């Protein structure tokens, strides 16, 4: 009987969480389309979320592109298809690895930072203070982060795609014996506009997920330092899982599989 009660409580808790998240998302989207929109805060958040994530996203993309080139070369070698490295690297990076790796890295860096900052504001009553100063906390704290993440992520992924392909190029030309000009020609000839656009669409959705989960968990943090720590962990874990789930869903939709 206790086991059934435990399962029931867990299901009710999950449903309550989904309900709270849905209500929070609804309030946030409503706030996005009503004034005031804080342009200065959006610009600051683009700097924090986008610009300051460039080093970590760039480095990750470079090494991922390089490792991908090595694996494709080794795998292709079994069937005498080593020459396909540039085509598969550009396909893998633009469609999947660019947006997913960038999304996960930004989730780790930004969702955690957002949850920690807003969570601390919650437990120190700074969010209540915003309300008493006739300022809507959703508009002031959530909307700028959400818009900044949606704008920044496609730019980050565009750069990550370029650096990832470059990583594959460096490994292929320096270690695998490819000619630089032919590698680049094969890359450019093979990549289609849809390959690149699909990655950028995914990036915008991942940006939405990262900012939303960071803000939601921050707003719902309880207690003191421990509560903020738990909110930070929950933000990273939930945004990472949702990114991977959304990636599968978007791949199914965008490529009609």
């Amino acid at each position: 009987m206790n086991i059934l009660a435990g399962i029931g409580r867990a299901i009710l808790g999950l449903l309550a969480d989904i309900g709270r998240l849905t209500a929070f998302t609804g309030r946030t989207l409503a706030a996005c389309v009503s004034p005031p929109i804080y342009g200065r805060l959006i610009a600051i958040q683009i700097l924090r979320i986008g610009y300051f994530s460039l080093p970590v996203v760039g480095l990750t993309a470079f090494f991922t592109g390089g490792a991908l080139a090595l694996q494709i070369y080794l795998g292709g070698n079994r069937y005498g298809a080593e020459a396909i490295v540039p085509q598969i690297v550009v396909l893998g990076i633009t469609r999947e690895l660019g947006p997913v790796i960038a999304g996960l890295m930004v989730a780790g860096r930004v969702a955690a930072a957002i949850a920690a900052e807003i969570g601390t504001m919650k437990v120190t009553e700074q969010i209540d203070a915003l309300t008493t100063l006739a300022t809507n906390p959703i508009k002031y704290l959530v909307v700028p982060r959400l818009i900044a993440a949606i704008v920044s992520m496609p730019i980050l992924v565009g750069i990550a795609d370029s650096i990832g392909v470059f990583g594959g190029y460096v490994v292929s030309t320096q270690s695998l014996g490819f000619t630089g000009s032919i590698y680049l020609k094969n890359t450019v000839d093979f990549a289609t506009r849809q390959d690149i656009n699909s990655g950028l669409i995914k990036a915008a959705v991942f940006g939405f997920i990262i900012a939303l989960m960071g803000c939601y968990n921050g707003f719902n943090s309880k207690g003191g330092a421990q509560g903020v720590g738990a909110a930070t962990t929950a933000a990273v874990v939930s945004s990472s899982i949702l990114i991977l789930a959304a990636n599968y869903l978007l791949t199914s939709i965008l490529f009609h599989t």
Partner: protein
Amino acid sequence: MTAKIELIGVKKRFGSKVVLDGVNLVIEKQSSTVIIGGSGTGKSVTIKCILGILTPDEGTILIDGVDVTRLRGAARDPVMRKFGMLFQGAALFDSLPVWENVAFGLIQGRGMARAAAKKIAIEKLAKVGLGEDVAYLSPSELSGGMQKRVGLARAIAADPEIIFFDEPTTGLDPIMADIINDLIVSTVRDVGATALSITHDMVSSRKISDRIAMLYQGKIIWDGPTAQIDQSGNEYVDQFIHGRAEGPIKMAVKA
């Protein structure tokens, strides 16, 4: 005459825990009322219900005779512009310098130009005894007493009609507590505001109020002029104001 704030049968529970169980309270215009009561008796919840941060489960809250109990969004903005609040921990925004904290409600809440708001912020800081040099510091560079002063300057920056004080002297040494009490009395008088404070500091209560109400088990069990609290005839009030362990009030160990 219409009361500035009126609470009628306000109830609020969190899960199975009843915090407010029918609070009735009338606060006259330009009066200074203090709600006293032990920790966890619902003092903060009462203020948060008036501010609209929490919504009561039952009951009515009137501000200037207007029912604001369930006002939300843009409809609530004119009501919020009547309020100023000093939080227990000051609740200063640590991402902003002191002057922007003080000017925040003017810039974000009222759309005032930054330069004009900064001038007012520096004037208000001077009112609470802080020089212009403090205006450019970060809140983390200030002592607890200075943070309270900045919080007070922020609370009065927009010349609000109603100012709330949440445990204004908690965590301060007796001298700084007395300074903050004096500042509360003088600033409320200067602004011509109605003040509602919550505290369990009886020295502070006597100094800053002209009326005291005691909250116990979710209800106001006594309400009267500050001068009469020693003759309340209420054994709960007597135990609380004299800080006696023995008496009808049994402190709960768990929240």
